[in-house]
């Protein structure tokens, strides 16, 4: 869109829209440490990062879990997971997302009952 801007202000839509070249979710397996994976999620911040991280810590197969937003002007988070080896990091991540989805569905159901 044609907006007249001052030179230094970043585009406000930068924090929302993913440019064409980048993927929403990318995955990198660490070469030196066993069962260690990094997940880079574009255009997400602490809203998702904190709940994914806290849900992963509840899993008994997870040895290490941490997330960070490396720089406030760059809009992505990195989640690092190390598992015991019984389960792959991808599976653990997948089950954490599903558990969170179920928990929010419970909240939604309880809330809809309360409104009635």
């Amino acid at each position, binding site marked *: 869109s044609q907006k007249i801007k001052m030179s230094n202000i970043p585009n406000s839509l930068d924090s929302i829209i993913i440019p064409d070249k980048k993927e929403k979710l990318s995955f990198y397996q660490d070469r030196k440490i066993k069962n260690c994976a990094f997940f880079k999620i574009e255009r997400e911040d602490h809203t998702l990062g904190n709940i994914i991280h806290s849900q992963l810590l509840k899993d008994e197969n997870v040895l290490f879990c941490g997330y960070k937003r490396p720089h406030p002007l760059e809009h992505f988070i990195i989640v690092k997971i190390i598992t015991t080896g019984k389960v792959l990091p991808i599976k653990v991540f997948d089950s954490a997302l*599903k558990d969170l989805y179920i928990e929010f569905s419970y909240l*939604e159901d309880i809330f809809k009952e309360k*409104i009635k």
Partner: protein
Amino acid sequence: MRPDKVVWEEFSEFQAQLTFSGVENTIINSLRRTMMNEVPTLAIDLVSIEINTTIFHDEFISHRLGLIPLNSGKVDKFRFNRECECEERCEACSCIFSLDINVLEKEKLVFSTDLKNLSSEENLLGKSVVPIHNSGSEKSSFSEPILIAKLRNGQRLKLLAIAKKGIGKEHSKWSPVSIIRLENKPFFFLDLYKLEQKLNKKKKKELVEILPNLLQLDPIRETLSYKKRINDKDPYINNTSFNLIIKWLSNERIDSEEFIKIYSENNQILLKIETTGALSNKIIFKNSIEILKQKLNLIGIHLEKIQ
């Protein structure tokens, strides 16, 4: 995993409170962040000014117009302007207002009621987008709409304003929430045994008169004690009684910190929401859960592609 209890209370048209028991504070914090930043609403985004001979410069008035909350009940049916198939704007992605003021009297105040909705009569979607004129509390006896500018005799203001859909992350004018607070539920404790050593019989009677439902005075031994609670789970002291105790203690010049302790009730979290009026509190909360679920779903889909 399943929350123990969720209580919804509405204090007024614009204020509501949720009490969660058995839900982690990380989840409630994410809901709070979503309610503030990611729930879409409508707000004025593009202003083309034809005549402006007021003392305010163009950007000043445009900024104020952008911050006016618009009724976004039907925002789900609008499309984002960047995703719309039209060239610049159309009825499906935006809504147009006009403001035309020519001051003939000595002084004129321009309110949000002077904004005219230019959508055609058949366009029910656009017609529903009206500025929220009154976001006051029940205490204000008269409600005044939002003041945009003050003009003097001879000054003119003529402009067209286009409202679009957006989220709070892009600019906080699109945030449907004005104040949102997250806190642990407080639990008040008054040390009666310590307090009554400082009071004589007359003062004790006064205290019991202020809080008849809470305290009682034993006439023989002249000691204060709590009345028997109806429901064992209810807290001893609620908010109103707590405020009365504090007021009375300050009137008597007694240091309240010695006798009152505040703890946080086990695992209970309060979420207090105040809306600007653009969306009702229930819709904001419902939409925030949906948006978070959509986000999680999207990442799950991308994860399956990688596997």
